[in-house]
């Protein structure tokens, strides 16, 4: 078999599109891959302008690309990561992927005849698979990143992520002398509930309390599970009066939640501590311990109530 026949036989079996155009972008030749994927007859395409045959091509961009190949005599590339496809072609995984068109890597090669570039060869590779797996990977990474921030049971932020948020909000509030408030609340007699009805009832209560509390918050508030039956909320740009208002609404909301577990109705309540940043707070941990102290005070004064760190210091200063 003559060498030329070898070449064209191989070119026709390649799983890559091969397209030859002249410098006026007239199509001269292609391989079987393109004939099949475009579903066009060579007679209707050869000798025709590339941009009439493939109106989807960005013509100006394409011509500038070709001019670099011709003038510099260097290959040029176009990756699916920047342009998912140049040619609108179907692909080989129409059933098991969600892409409409074949994702492509396209290479523009200068073809030199007697020292002059007169033709350009385009290689069109099907990378739909790569593209598909890459987007699946990205999706999985996003899900992982989310899972890393969320408490699996209650779907609010977990302790670690919540504390990172607090560190940021605290630093910002200090830098610009803005307000930031903290609410911490703890469900009353939670251990008794677990002991009476079992842990699954406790889990149900945690889920419902988190869901209801979330519905009372603004988008910018940061709600997390601090541990066990203790929750914490960062309220950016909120002063003491505003935070007390939210805290009271949360307390009332939890008190009036109608929950039932295996036919038995369950009542619950929460003790709430509130603290607002003041200039004595150097670290975000100071804010946490202030809110925690107020929460302890709410427990000590009979539970199901709201206390603020500020009223504690005031009464301490008075006595």
């Amino acid at each position, binding site marked *: 078999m003559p060498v030329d026949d070898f070449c064209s036989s191989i070119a026709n079996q390649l799983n890559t599109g091969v397209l030859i155009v002249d410098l006026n972008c007239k199509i001269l030749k292609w391989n079987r891959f393109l004939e099949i994927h475009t579903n066009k007859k060579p007679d209707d395409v050869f000798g025709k302008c590339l941009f009439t045959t493939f109106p989807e091509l960005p013509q100006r961009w394409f011509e500038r690309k070709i001019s670099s190949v011709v003038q510099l005599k*260097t290959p040029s590339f176009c990756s699916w990561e920047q342009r998912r496809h140049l040619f609108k072609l179907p692909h080989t995984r129409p059933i098991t992927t969600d892409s409409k068109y074949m994702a492509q890597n396209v290479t523009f090669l200068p073809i030199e005849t007697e020292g002059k570039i007169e033709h350009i060869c385009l290689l069109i590779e099907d990378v739909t698979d790569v593209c598909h797996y890459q987007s699946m990977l990205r999706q999985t990474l996003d899900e992982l990143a989310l899972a890393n921030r969320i408490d699996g049971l209650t779907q609010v932020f977990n302790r670690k992520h919540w504390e990172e948020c607090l560190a940021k909000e605290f630093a910002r509030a200090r830098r610009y002398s803005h307000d930031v408030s903290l609410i911490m609340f703890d469900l009353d007699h939670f251990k008794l509930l677990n002991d009476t009805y079992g842990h699954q009832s406790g889990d149900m209560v945690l889920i419902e309390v988190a869901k209801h509390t979330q519905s009372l918050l603004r988008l910018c508030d940061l709600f997390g599970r601090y541990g066990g039956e203790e929750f914490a909320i960062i309220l950016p740009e909120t002063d003491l009066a505003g935070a007390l208002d939210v805290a009271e609404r949360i307390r009332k909301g939890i008190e009036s939640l109608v929950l039932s577990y295996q036919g038995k109705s369950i009542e619950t309540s929460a003790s709430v501590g509130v603290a607002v940043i003041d200039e004595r707070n150097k670290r975000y941990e100071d804010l946490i311990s202030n809110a925690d102290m107020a929460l302890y005070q709410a427990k000590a004064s009979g539970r199901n109530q709201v206390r603020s760190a500020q009223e504690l210091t005031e009464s301490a200063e008075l006595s």
Partner: protein
Amino acid sequence: MTALNLNEDQQDCLQELINVAMGQASDQLARYLDTFVYLKVPSIEQVNAESLSTTLNTEEKGIAVVSQGFFGYEGIRGEALLVYQPKDSDRLADLLGYEPDELTVEEQIIDLSSILTTTFLNVFASQIDNQMSYSAPRLLSSGLHSVSDHLEQLSFNWDMALKVKISYQVTDYSFNCDMILLIPESAILNITTVIDRILDEF
């Protein structure tokens, strides 16, 4: 390490080949880009894998690095890294002769990288009677993550590499970038053979 050391003649010869290639490449680029392209005298040195990220000086955030592999006859191969500072990407589309809305900044950076790398290496290859092929250029990193973070995550299968750094300047567009050619250990020996042959013929 000693096996890789180029002697003074070899170093001079390589420097000369690179200088000539730079001259021709900058001439071709100037004509294509329709503006003057200055290439600063290259630095040639050996680096080891551990110190690569520090020698690239890529600590700064927002830096973009494009990698493109090259390979020719006689085992000449390596990787070209194009390093861009964030402030230098503003007028790239203009420089390349595209409308800004025709392509993203990333694509502009990749496109220019490929042009700079292949133009220079094609001329360099013809100096040593060789011919280069190239892999598609890839954006290694840009935006938030610094490139040194990225490089530190890679494990290299080489210890020493020959590093050739060439700085490009396009003053009309106040644009700068660095091209860093890294030739791994095994390919340095091959390049030394080619240099020795040229020195013999000389």
